[in-house]
């Protein structure tokens, strides 16, 4: 494979920023059913803050680790909320993998996304079935882990995304156990979890980014 450059990584982050602006009303709508209706707002605030960094401070930064670290800190401090620590921990763990690297090989990508997903899981202390973003990210991580030594990252991504999507969709029928919607009990059934949705979009966009590189 052609190595994935940090320029491409930055372009990916810009794509996510654009996507979030498009999807923010949808994400808030989902959260309105289950929580306080702000998931699109929090994501937009966070990613817009990241954009500001990409446009300025990170303009000439080529170290993938540094970029991820700034993304993590910026997102966290702009957002707070539940997703601030969750996504920030994901990017922070990922930053350790990418430290010092400006060209990312398959191996780096595998390790980045495993660290990203495991970081979120550790931070949130939620389990599969709790109706959170873990229902998307855990099957995704399991899947790429299994394929790590046998597949290209792009190929592994195809399979893992299918698992992630299944996970995301499965939140519809779950009863919330973590986060704001847990109080709803049975009333939470029938609605897809907003965090499970946003994290799916974020990894899906990474696949798009990778594919466009090839």
């Amino acid at each position: 494979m052609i190595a994935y450059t940090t320029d491409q990584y930055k372009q990916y982050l810009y794509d996510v920023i654009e996507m979030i602006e498009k999807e923010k009303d949808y994400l808030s709508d989902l959260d309105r059913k289950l929580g306080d209706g702000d998931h699109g707002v929090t994501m937009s605030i966070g990613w817009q803050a990241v954009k500001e960094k990409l446009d300025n401070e990170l303009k000439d930064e080529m170290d993938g680790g540094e970029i991820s670290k700034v993304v993590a800190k910026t997102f966290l401090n702009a957002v707070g909320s539940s997703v601030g620590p969750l996504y920030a921990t994901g990017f922070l763990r990922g930053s350790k993998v990418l430290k010092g690297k400006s060209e990312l090989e398959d191996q780096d990508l595998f390790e980045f996304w495993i660290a990203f997903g495991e970081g979120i899981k550790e931070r949130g202390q939620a389990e599969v079935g709790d109706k959170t973003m873990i229902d998307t990210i855990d099957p995704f991580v399991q899947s790429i882990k299994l394929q790590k030594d046998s597949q290209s990252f792009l190929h592994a991504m195809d399979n893992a995304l299918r698992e992630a999507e299944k996970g995301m969709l499965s939140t519809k029928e779950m009863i919330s156990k973590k986060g704001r919607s847990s109080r709803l009990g049975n009333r939470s059934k029938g609605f897809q979890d907003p965090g499970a949705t946003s994290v799916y979009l974020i990894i899906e966009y990474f696949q798009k980014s990778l594919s466009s590189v090839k």
Partner: protein
Amino acid sequence: MKKLINIPNDVVDEMIDGYVKAHPKLVRKLNENKRSIVIASETRENKVGVLIGGGSGHEPAFMGYVGKGMADGVAVGNIFASPPPDPIVAATKAIDKGNGVVYIYGNYAGDLMNFGMAAELAELEEDIDIEFVVVNDDVASAPNNEKEKRRGIAGEFFVTKVAGAAAEKGYSLKEVAEVARQTNNVTRTMGVGLSPCYLPQTNEPSFTLENNEMEIGLGHHGEPGVEKGELQEADRVADRLVQDILNDITISKGNKVAVLVNGLGSTTKMELYIVFRRVEQILAEKSIEIYRSYVGNYSTSLEMGGCSVTLTKLDDELTELIDAEANCPMYAQL
């Protein structure tokens, strides 16, 4: 929903700006972090610090409760979003007098994570001892046998009041935390929503209700309640709220309580006093003494309509602490 705002994403910073300009003798914003507000006057050396915080949109909570006899500092989040660790750490450093800081916040995933991360930083980098008091007074949010899942709502006012008074009286870090946790243990809240709130950024109603409906046990960020019910007379609503509380905690004949009838935003004081009237009747019938009452907007959900009832069972220590003087920009008690 029409709002008197400028740019939706700027509301929190502009509110803070107005707040510290309105009460410069009482509070100030830290240079280190624009989302950290602390008491303006110098606090007593060795006093344990009390730090509160959470999302905005609940004013007077939490921002309004910084002052003598209440909190020493607050970290202010975006609307309905926990503050990130930075403003928490900044406020922690500013208010620590060498004897540590008690963090008081509601039992929400976001607050747990952010305050938790902040405490780690404060302890690691600054060597400040931190104690956590996680408020979970909302009866509706989980059954009694899963109390650890319950959310913190209006009852946090009493927890802050007690912690602030205890710190002022010279309690140690552990003691302040202990009595605050004890207050949380004997505090229960139950709420009802009549009309939704609107986030400035989306301007969408947080829930939709028919003209004859109410949300029972709603969250105080406009989260849907546990149950929709037919809108009833104020007395029947009060009956329901108090009954749910008394089913959850034993408060018996001769016990003393503090009562808070809290408005969620657009409900008038007139209505809140009508609800209080019925709460008093119920408790009087059971020979439960109301030692002190609070009626008004103590913890809102933007402009949501509805109210909550909070009961805190008082022993002698809590009685004394509830009675102590307090002086904050949005709340004073003589």
